[in-house]
């Protein structure tokens, strides 16, 4: 897959993983993995990027005697998901057209 495309898709995937409930790094990797190739190392820059673009916020929760970072989606992150959805319904329409059988 095109690198830029993949990066954009991964960003939205991560946002989707925290869309309905806050989540933490390891769980996000597990949730996204069925759909896209993602590792702990590839997730890290994505989380940083999303945070600096204000699409998610981070907070720490105590868990089994250690601190675990949780990620919460912001309104901007939700908007990003929405625009992804709109963009891709267009792309799907084009796809149907391109692959139609005469």
């Amino acid at each position: 897959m095109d690198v830029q495309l993949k990066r954009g898709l991964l960003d939205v995937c991560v946002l989707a993983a925290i869309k309905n409930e806050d989540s933490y790094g390891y769980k996000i990797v597990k949730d996204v993995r069925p759909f896209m190739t993602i590792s702990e190392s590839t997730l890290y820059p994505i989380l940083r990027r999303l945070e600096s673009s204000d699409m998610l916020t981070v907070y720490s929760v105590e868990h089994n005697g250690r601190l675990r970072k949780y990620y919460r989606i912001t309104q901007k992150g939700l908007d990003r998901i929405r625009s992804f959805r709109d963009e891709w319904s267009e792309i799907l329409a084009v796809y149907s057209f391109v692959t139609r059988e005469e």
Partner: protein
Amino acid sequence: MNKLQFLNQLRQLTASLPKDEAEKYVEYYSEMIDDAIEEGGTEEEAVASMGTPEEIKAYIKENSGGHSKTTEYPKTSQYVPQQNKSNKLPVWAIVVLICCFPIWLPICFALLSVYISLWAVVISLFAAFGSIIVVGIAASVSAFFCGSFPQLLAMLGAGLFCTGFGLVMIVAVSAFSKQFVRFTAFLVNSIIRLFRGY
């Protein structure tokens, strides 16, 4: 490799980064390893699933280039105002310029009138050659009203020559005036750039 070794190696890999960034890396991977262990697996397995040190080194390098385009969403406006306004006239020069306006203003007017008269010349040339064309056409037409054949030929010849000559000269003058306009635009832009700096 156990967790401690891994984190120490990570600290080495992030040594060149700012302290809080390096610390974030360590926190992240430490948490990841702990979660991996919690989900089932040994410490060694958890550490191994983080990737090889080479891979992590590559990722860190890729993402630490001063938070370049790989880590930031492209901002809508990437415009960075020029730091060094080397082309712009310094403030004192502008002040001197303003104070000296009794000197340069009349000169400007003089130059402006020269410029306008140049255009007047161009316009009159257009008019002159335009009328030559008209004359040429008229002569060619009236040639057919001439009494004798030689007269007809002479008139027609002269008329056609005038028409052709006029057309050629019109083309030449319009080409020249086009260049003249371009030159004027260039002059104006240069002057504006002197004050704006770009």
